[in-house]
């Protein structure tokens, strides 16, 4: 089972004492040569913040919980709405009306009681972003609006934290991973689009499974980050169109003139960009 190693011997070298249940639970990770007991231990020591318990946050949280991430923080100020259930698979019909963070916490605990869950039933804004983010090793952007996407980007760059960006719309998705020094969201897009310029999922619609496609990529990137496996989506923007099932990775370069991570950054504080009223609700 452990590639010729004596099971007890391997366990003794690990910092964490795996229980028999944990060995069984994570056996498919441990079997992976690139992960093994050491990789699983890193996963179990990891602290991940998921911003948004919606279409992207749902699959991200479920997979990270199943993988055994030590601590998962969830930020979301919404309650579960019936229209969320078409894609936000962490919430069930019985959860309509309760805070998304509570619904998500319950499912995470049901999947894996070992996971420590911290819930933040509030909006992420310039007043709390840095304080919340600093407690975590990796941040997953699962939000559905540009003001918060820029806020997460800026806060992570300022705090030197890695994060996974994700966006979905209609039949398309895009994602990249930022590590300090690699291209950030502002390198690609200088500032949020004007209010009303670009539609949101709640107006333009989205195929539910697209959220799962993109969210699981973000979860995979998170696990790759902690285990050090493979190459992250840094300096690359992955985009896909589910209509054609064509995936494309566009190389993107860190922009020297970037207002937050460039040579002479002009942004020295977090900005709360204007947000349409509808986004506060959904």
């Amino acid at each position, binding site marked *: 089972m452990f590639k010729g190693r004596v099971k007890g011997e391997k366990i003794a070298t690990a910092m964490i004492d795996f229980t028999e249940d944990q060995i069984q639970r994570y056996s498919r990770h441990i079997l992976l040569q690139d992960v093994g007991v050491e990789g699983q231990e890193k996963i179990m020591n990891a602290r991940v913040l998921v911003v948004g318990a919606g279409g992207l946050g749902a699959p991200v949280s479920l997979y990270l919980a199943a993988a055994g991430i030590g601590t998962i923080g969830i930020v979301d100020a919404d309650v579960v709405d019936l229209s969320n259930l078409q894609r936000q698979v962490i919430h069930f019909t019985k959860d309509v009306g309760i805070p998304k963070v509570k619904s998500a916490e319950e499912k995470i605990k049901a999947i894996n009681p070992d996971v420590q869950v911290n819930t933040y039933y509030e909006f992420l804004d310039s007043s709390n972003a840095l304080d919340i983010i600093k407690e975590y090793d990796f941040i997953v952007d699962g*939000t*559905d*609006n*540009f*003001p918060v*996407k820029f806020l997460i980007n800026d806060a992570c760059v300022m705090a030197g934290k890695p994060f996974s*960006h*994700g*966006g*979905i*719309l209609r039949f*398309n*998705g*895009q994602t990249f991973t930022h590590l300090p020094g690699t291209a950030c969201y502002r*390198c*690609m*897009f*200088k500032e*949020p*689009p004007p*209010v*009303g*310029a*670009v*539609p*949101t*999922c709640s*107006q*333009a619609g989205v195929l539910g499974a697209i959220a799962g496609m993109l969210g699981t990529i973000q979860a995979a990137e998170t696990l790759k980050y902690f285990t050090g496996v493979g190459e992250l989506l840094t300096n690359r*923007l992955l*985009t896909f169109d589910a209509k054609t099932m064509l995936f*494309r990775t*566009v*190389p*993107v*370069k860190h*922009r020297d*003139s970037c207002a937050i991570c460039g040579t002479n950054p002009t942004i020295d504080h977090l900005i709360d960009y*204007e*947000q*349409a*009223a*509808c*986004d506060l609700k959904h």
Partner: protein
Amino acid sequence: MAFHITHLWYAIYHFRGIVGVQKPPYLCSVIQTQKKIMAKIYVNGDAQEVSLPLNVSELIKQNDVQQPDMVSVQVNEEFAEREDWDGIQLKEGDKIDFLYFMGGGCLREE
């Protein structure tokens, strides 16, 4: 060789300095077309045959890019500043990527 009215126009145009005539309009377009060069460029990874000269702004129009004021453009993997789009002349083999905002937004409810 049969005489054709075109030959007469061309003869007059050839001595335009002497007789002081303007280029006939159709000849104008012929000359301009002859100057154009076809080039293969790659837009979002797909090959496109375009006629040069062509700048980034013109390429955006040709490709019917929706909301051009919302798009980010990379030319050969370098971001092109919006104010430079008119001045960037494309050439054979150039790779152009349009990056779009995705992931929600702030469309006000009607």
